[in-house]
Structures are given as structure tokens and as C-alpha cells.
């Protein structure tokens, strides 16, 4: 018997989980992460560390920057991908996503539709990266973990992310629907 035909395989690996299943699992995992590492789940602060480590490789000194005067960030400057928990989390996301798509046998290298897509992705990435730094987190660190730990800044983030998504959808219809 081919196991890919079994209903259990289809339910767990092939079909998308319900929002409820996902939400409950995320809540449990974030609670566990907070209990073990002392910090809620976050993604983009680590990107700043990666940027700093790469800059260091090329001889740039970022230790004088305001961002690295904060104790946790200063400590991270001396770490590497192998000793930094945030890096392990981010690599885990990528490896986990790859595993999930392989288990569902849905892996595909997608072709680029247009150069407009490339420019929009690069511009969007830069804006999101910059925004995540001045907002002290992204939709995970500031929004998800912020609201879960009952911090006001998570709720403020929520209001503005809806505003941003609304503006973004207007731009999308205008520039990508022709």
C-alpha cells in the first residue's frame, strides 16, 4: 500500500491545517520558547545581527552604533550563527518550511513572472526591514509576541499594520493588475 494515499497522511502533511490548529500550536510553542529562552519569539532582530557579523567580516566596526549599546545586542556582536539562539530559530523556520513542502510533495522552484516583481520584492523587503527596526520588531516580535505578552506596543503595531496592508493592497491593484 502506498502511504501517500492514506487519509491520515493527507490530513497531516498534504492539506493546510485550520487557523485554529495553527494558532493553538503557535501559542504553545511561543510559551515554551519564553519559558526556555526568557524571550518571546522574534525574527528580525537577528537579521540586524547577521548584518553586523557580515559587516565585521569586511572590517566595518558597528560596535559604536546606538543599537549595539543595548546590552543584549552588544552581547550578540560577539556571537556567531552557531551560538546565537535567534539564528537557530530563523534557520529552523527555513528548514521546517522546506521539510513541510517536501513532505507534502509540493516543492517547486517558481519562475519569475516579471522584473516588476523583483523590484517590488526588493523595495518591499527594504521597507519592511527598516520598519521592523524602528518599530522594535516585525509582525512576529512586535505584533505576535507583543500582544501575547500584553504589551501596548503590540496593539499599536496591529492598528498600523492594517493601515499599511490597506495602502499596500491599493498599490498592488494599481501596479500589478494591468
Amino acid at each position, binding site marked *: 500500500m502506498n502511504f501517500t494515499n492514506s487519509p491520515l497522511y493527507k490530513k497531516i502533511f498534504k492539506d*493546510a491545517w485550520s487557523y485554529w490548529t495553527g494558532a493553538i500550536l503557535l501559542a504553545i510553542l511561543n510559551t515554551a520558547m519564553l519559558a526556555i529562552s526568557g524571550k518571546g519569539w522574534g525574527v528580525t532582530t537577528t537579521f540586524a545581527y547577521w548584518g553586523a557579523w557580515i559587516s565585521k567580516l569586511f572590517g566595518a566596526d558597528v560596535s559604536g552604533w546606538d543599537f549595539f549599546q543595548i546590552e543584549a545586542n552588544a552581547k550578540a556582536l560577539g556571537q556567531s550563527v552557531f551560538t546565537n539562539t535567534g539564528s537557530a530559530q530563523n534557520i529552523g523556520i527555513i528548514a521546517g518550511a522546506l521539510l513541510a513542502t517536501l513532505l507534502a510533495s*509540493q*516543492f*517547486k522552484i*517558481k*519562475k519569475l*513572472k516579471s522584473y516588476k516583481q523583483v523590484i517590488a520584492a526588493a523595495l518591499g523587503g527594504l521597507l519592511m526591514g527598516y520598519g521592523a527596526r524602528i518599530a522594535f520588531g516585525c509582525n512576529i516580535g512586535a505584533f505576535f509576541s507583543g500582544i501575547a505578552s500584553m504589551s501596548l506596543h503590540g496593539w499599536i503595531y496591529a492598528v498600523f499594520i492594517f493601515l499599511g496592508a490597506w495602502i499596500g493592497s491599493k498599490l498592488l491593484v494599481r501596479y*500589478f*493588475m494591468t
Partner: protein
Amino acid sequence: MAEYRLDCLGEACPVPLIKTQKKMEQLKVGDTLIVEIDHSCAMKNVPEWARKVGHNVEIEEVDDGEWEIYIEKTK
């Protein structure tokens, strides 16, 4: 009873959904639209919308991570 194809390969949400909605407006009742997608979340929201509107929907997995959504316009 014409059949149309909509190439949404390489497009991310919500582009396939909006393109499908626009294209369906141009179809006559009884016509079928085949939407080609390779974005798994479009595989959820495109059929969801079409069923809510009342069209007949069928999904076929044509390759690894590639689907065709058949939508027959009913009204």
C-alpha cells in the same frame, strides 16, 4: 460553453484571487475558467471565494506544487 485559461504561475497572494475575480466578470454563464497556480495559499482562497459566490469548483493537482482550479460560471 467556452473555456478560458488564466496563467497565475509565479504570482503570490492576493494577485491570483483578484485576477480570477476580474476574469470571471467577463465570462458568460456556463463558461469555464481554468486558473493555473503554484502558490498554495491561492489554492485555498480562490476556490473559497468561487464557492461562496456559488460557482462550481474543482481542483486538480497537475504537478508538485502546481494546481489547476476549474471554475464554472453558474450565474
